[in-house]
């Protein structure tokens, strides 16, 4: 067995792959945050709670009406996205004219309320959600045992991330959206319904979080606190990638997953901190983030 830095090679490759898998979640969540911040200028702290709701809706669909994993992968984001739209219409849209800080505080409060409600209704120790039969089992890659489901997560995340990037950067809808954030009155003058566009964008960002939630449900226990564990790291990812940068959040998400994975081999105690160390370094040297545009 060959060694790299005193660690057996297979173990190291395994960790790289695992890092990529975790990175997939970071990428999906930070992408939604970046879209919402880039288009709406809202720092959406409720993202973790809505990620959790995605997992819970998948669980409810299965246990209350018997709808399985794959339909839930479409349905749960739609349902939670609709809930997001409701939040945007009724509450969040009132804060667009105010400082970012108000949006942050409001969504933080919302996330506490949502998590509290789920904790009251479903307890805190979590609910079981099985890996769908088609994705059970594992492949022996030689250097590690790779669960098929985890491979599916990376694949699904990569596809969704790329599709989102393509829609925003390469389509006319995306172009309108970007134009609306630059100069809303002008775009409105061309006959585009900007408020509706913004509402749909928020719903889309939330749907991304819910999609990640459904993907996470079979891996982690479906638990009211599952979003809180992710949200801090994901915010660091967004800051490192550059606030509002779509490509930045995707690349940084995957990259930081790998960095974290490697830390778990060399010094596990620091694995929760390493992302924030990177954040500090990036903020000191490139305050706009790795992919952020100059002001």
């Amino acid at each position, binding site marked *: 067995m060959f060694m790299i830095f005193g660690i057996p090679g297979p*173990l190291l490759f*395994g960790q790289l792959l695992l890092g990529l898998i975790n990175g997939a979640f970071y990428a999906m969540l930070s992408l939604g945050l970046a879209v919402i911040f880039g288009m709406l200028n809202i720092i959406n702290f409720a993202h973790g709670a809505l990620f959790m709701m995605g997992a819970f809706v998948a669980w409810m669909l299965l246990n209350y009406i018997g709808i399985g994993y794959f339909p839930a992968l479409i349905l749960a984001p739609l349902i939670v996205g609709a809930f997001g739209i409701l939040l945007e219409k009724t509450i969040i849209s009132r804060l667009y004219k105010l400082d970012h800080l108000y949006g942050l505080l409001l969504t933080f409060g919302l996330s506490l309320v949502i998590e509290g409600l789920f904790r009251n209704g479903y307890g*805190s120790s*979590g*609910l079981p959600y099985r890996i769908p039969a088609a994705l059970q089992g*594992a492949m022996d890659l030689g250097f590690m045992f790779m669960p098929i489901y*985890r491979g599916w997560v990376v694949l699904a995340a990569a596809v969704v991330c790329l599709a989102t990037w393509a829609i925003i950067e390469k389509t006319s809808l995306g172009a309108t959206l970007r134009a609306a954030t630059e100069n809303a009155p002008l775009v409105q003058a061309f006959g585009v319904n900007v408020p509706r566009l913004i509402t749909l964008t928020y719903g889309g960002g939330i749907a991304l979080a819910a999609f990640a939630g459904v993907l996470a449900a079979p891996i982690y*226990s479906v638990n009211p606190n599952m979003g809180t564990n992710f949200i801090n790291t994901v915010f660091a990812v967004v800051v490192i990638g550059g606030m509002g940068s779509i490509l930045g959040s995707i690349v940084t998400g995957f990259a930081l997953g790998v960095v974290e994975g490697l830390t*778990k081999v060399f010094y596990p105690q620091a694995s929760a901190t390493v992302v924030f160390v990177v954040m500090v370094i990036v903020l000191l040297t490139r305050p706009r983030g790795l992919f952020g545009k100059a002001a």
Partner: protein
Amino acid sequence: MNVSRRAITLGGLAAAAGTIAPLTAGRAQARPVIRVGCLTDMSGPYKDLAGPGAVSAIKQAIQEFGVAGKGFDVEVLVADHLNKPDVGTTVARQWFDRDGVDVIVEVANSGVALAVANVAKEKNKVYLNTGAATSDLTAAACNANTIHWVYDTYMLAQSTGAAMVKSGGDSWFFITADYAFGKALQRDTTDFVTNAGGKVLGGVTYPFPGTTDFSSYLIQAQSSGAKVLGLANAGTDTINTIKQAKEFGIKMRLAGLLLFLTDIHSLGLEVSQGIVLTDSFYWDMNDRSRAFSDRYTANMKGTRPTMVQAGVYSSISHYLKAATAMGVDKAKLDGAATIAQLKAMPTDDDCFGAGSIRADGRKIHPSYLWEVKKPGESKGPWDYYKAVASTPADKAFRPLDKGGCPLVKA
């Protein structure tokens, strides 16, 4: 059998209905009132294993004791300690100073538990801990106002650690939460494993709280070549570790060093089958425990009690007996004297059977090693454990002279 169980359940319900009226009506006649404060986790990670179920168990103990005919009343206060020692001590002080609370019960979370023990001593009140794991409560931190009722890290480590080695699991790897509780659990278990002839091949300590992905540590554990994976963590962390061990096809035997019935319920048998764990109470272990649990379930929407919730019932039942025996007025006046009375009387209840309380405040009863059933072996909801081994009461806990509790010297 079925008939008698149903009869008991109905009896419990009747008692429940019967005591509500005297509880409120009695107040006008200025009868003495014992105030019980349930300080627990009502919203965090331990909510399901203690929380509302613990409150329900207190009420059940009061109803079944039948205070109405005993010449005093009992009031129950509930507070959430949020797993923060400063919140816990603030509530405890308020309760003792302002609200006239006589006894604090439950307090899951070792950090809060140790802090509240100091307040109980300072105010000379009664403190019955059922939820905390740290064995320090009956060691250096013991005091004359505290009883540790259900389990502790020493009991868990001895039962699970030694039993696994005996059945061939002689090489271990630990996944440990990086804080006092996890490290204590790993330390205690390591002692038992090595004393029994096993060896520890390694371990990882991971950041707590906030870790959700354990796959990396599981791969490290697998590559160590150890036969047993010791989980020195609790709650959601343990649940996630077990789920992911299954997912990654980890071939090691899993030893849950602190697992509750509600954790297994959350995991489902498909994932948790075969795990070995230690509990001092399981609802389906004998006729008495089943009878108690049926009465509990009638109040708690179809859930079964954990050992912590059973401990709340057991401790409050015993407290009420002791307070009646010594006189309620006297019991309210002097916490240490009440604890002495609790220690002097043998304990006996549906949950833990006959037992006793040692000078250091350790309530002793047998500990049991359980294995989680395969899905096919389970006959219905909450039918999760099969018995593997047991340790008698006098051997289950740390020997009285080994803890260094100052109360023992006298």
